[in-house]
């Protein structure tokens, strides 16, 4: 580029942003929703809403879980227990099924049984409808779907690098980044889109930078394995063992039966040692003399994602080792970066702020794409007024914009509606719900490609608005835990009520956007690119 530095960075910013913005929008929407993935999963399993009320200490929950496992997981070589915490109201019990002699090894999923249990009594909770719930959205934002996870991660990583380049080049090219910080001039056409893009980008800039870089860091050993291969001459296993020290208390089955020591005193000891709560208990060879019990700490308020764990002898309860209490510098940094991305450390207020910043991120991506389309339309204004058709690029971008900015909310809406409307005992239910997500999105995208007009924007935004706003109403007809119960009678889980309310607010935002796009009188069409900006539209992910 023979132009100056700023111009070349502006060029780079535009193209590195535009080429991947539609995938990035999906990643941002799904990722932002993931901050509340446990709550979303709970919302999607109305059968569990009753049990979500009981509050027990971790000791009591561990004891109840131990009893339940002794009864139901006879002969299982490994136990996994997730105790209820801030985000999950029920205890999760899991065990690997003992292999019968002569039986072929089933796939990983076939070998594992998991269920939800009441934290106080250990009783199995009535089998809720099968759903991937919030986990689907969480996985979607880095594994994508309908392809192998590795492919998905490479594609998302590629887009994330583009995004990182886009952010940095955007900062470099923005001359008056601080002066323009609070500049928003509505109703000025292209200027307003630019302002909206700048505002959503710059006001949450620390967040955007953090989330993109830490996102790459979470999968950095996939994307950049060369460091490990160089220093360890290809021996990745040794590297991982040294970098992520776990308990090296892997003992083989001894064949001698011995009763498992009760969990409660171990939980007490661990919690005292850490000053935090126990979240996960796993047992190797329960009921055997060589059993090992591993307790892992729940995410506290320190930002590292790496939680320390403690290994105990399964029969005597003696402490075998504490792992991960003190981490060396780079490992700790890695932990903090990972932790910042998944944000498990966040209390309710901080999580809400992260969610808001994530929505700003969606808005940033959407306004960027819209700005490009508006600018391109302006460049072609003369030709268009003379009756020519828009260029291939412009038409494609406009259609993709509708298909994703309006289409993704439709997809989310369809997913939640499917959860309520599909028959509860259905074959492959989780996959069917996901199929609804993608089916609705595909329909919106294809229809948008056929006719990318202002009317199409209005229609799709209105469809999204309907799907979101009517969801709480749908709850009244399909569940016992609708807003009438959860909010007005103050009974049901608070998170379920919050979900209904948030979805309502987002739907109203979409409706407002659709309203703002009502048909313009003929004379206004002549002046190029006089689209009314609606910042609230972009808040609706």
């Amino acid at each position, binding site marked *: 580029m023979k132009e100056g530095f700023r111009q070349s*960075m502006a*060029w780079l910013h535009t193209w590195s942003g535009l080429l991947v913005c539609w995938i990035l929008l999906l990643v941002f929407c799904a990722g932002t929703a993931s901050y509340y993935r446990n709550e979303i999963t709970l919302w999607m399993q109305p059968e569990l809403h009753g049990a979500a009320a009981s509050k027990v200490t971790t000791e009591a929950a561990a004891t109840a879980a131990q009893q339940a496992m002794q009864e139901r997981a006879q002969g299982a070589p490994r136990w996994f227990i997730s105790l209820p915490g801030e985000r999950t109201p029920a205890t999760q019990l899991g065990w690997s099924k003992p292999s019968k002699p002569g039986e072929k090894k089933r796939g990983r999923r076939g070998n594992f049984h998991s269920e939800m249990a009441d934290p106080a009594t250990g009783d199995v909770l009535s089998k809720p409808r099968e759903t991937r719930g919030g986990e689907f959205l969480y996985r979607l934002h880095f594994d994508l779907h309908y392809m192998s996870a590795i492919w998905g991660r490479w594609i998302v990583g590629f887009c994330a690098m583009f995004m990182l*380049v886009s952010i940095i080049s955007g900062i470099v090219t923005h001359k008056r980044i601080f002066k323009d910080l609070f500049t928003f001039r509505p109703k000025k056409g292209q200027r307003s889109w630019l302002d909206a893009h700048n505002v959503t980008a710059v006001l949450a800039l620390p967040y955007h930078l953090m989330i993109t870089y830490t996102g790459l860091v979470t999968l950095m050993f996939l994307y950049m394995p*060369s*460091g490990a291969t*160089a*220093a*360890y001459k290809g021996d990745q296993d040794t*590297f991982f063992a040294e*970098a992520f020290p776990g308990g090296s208390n892997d003992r083989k089955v001894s064949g001698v039966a011995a009763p498992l020591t009760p969990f409660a005193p171990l939980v007490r000891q661990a919690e005292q040692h850490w000053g935090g709560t126990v979240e996960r208990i796993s047992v190797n060879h329960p009921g055997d003399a060589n059993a090992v019990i591993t307790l892992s700490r729940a995410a506290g308020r320190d930002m590292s994602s790496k939680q320390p764990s403690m290994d105990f002898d399964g029969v005597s309860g003696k402490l075998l080792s504490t792992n991960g209490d003190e981490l060396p510098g780079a490992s700790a940094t890695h932990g903090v970066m990972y932790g910042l991305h998944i944000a498990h450390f966040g209390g309710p207020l901080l999580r809400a702020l992260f969610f808001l910043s994530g929505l700003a991120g969606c808005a940033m991506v959407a306004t960027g794409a819209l700005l490009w389309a508006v600018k391109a339309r302006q460049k072609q204004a003369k030709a268009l007024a003379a009756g020519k058709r828009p260029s291939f690029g412009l038409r494609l971008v406009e259609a993709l914009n509708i298909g994703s900015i309006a289409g993704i909310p439709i997809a989310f809406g369809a997913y939640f509606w499917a959860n309520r409307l599909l028959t509860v005992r259905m074959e492959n239910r989780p996959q069917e719900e996901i199929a609804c997500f993608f089916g609705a999105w595909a329909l919106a995208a294809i229809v948008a490609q056929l006719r990318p007009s202002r009317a199409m924007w209005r229609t799709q935004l209105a469809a999204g608005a309907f799907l979101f706003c009517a969801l709480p109403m749908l709850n009244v007809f399909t569940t016992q835990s609708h807003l009438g119960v959860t909010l007005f009678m103050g009974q049901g889980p608070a998170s379920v009520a919050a979900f209904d309310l948030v979805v309502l607010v987002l739907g109203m935002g979409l409706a407002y956007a659709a309203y703002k796009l009502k048909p313009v009188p003929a004379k206004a069409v002549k002046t190029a690119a006089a689209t009314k900006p609606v910042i609230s539209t972009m808040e609706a992910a």
Partner: protein
Amino acid sequence: MQAPAITEKMPRLRLSAAAIYRLGVASRSIAAIAGGYVLAALATMLLSVCLPMARAEAVMTATLLSFAIYTCAVLWVFATGSALRAWLGLLIPGAVIAAILQWTGALSWSLA
């Protein structure tokens, strides 16, 4: 934007200014995406081997920094004066790093 075709006695490949521009962009894009990655990977290898800390720590630090290195390389490729300079700016440091790694015996061709 069509530049006038160059006419000479011998038939010559006629490239318009627009085509030259596009070739330049394509060249830089490949340099940035592929070349930038290779340079970042080589730099990561060098740091992993050279940083004065425990092996696992060095690898961790180097890998954490790799994306910043990659980003800087990409920005440089598009900021610099010509596509040729972009390629040279990647190849020369890359070759130097590779040579150092080869000399210390740590060059590993399996980047995956």
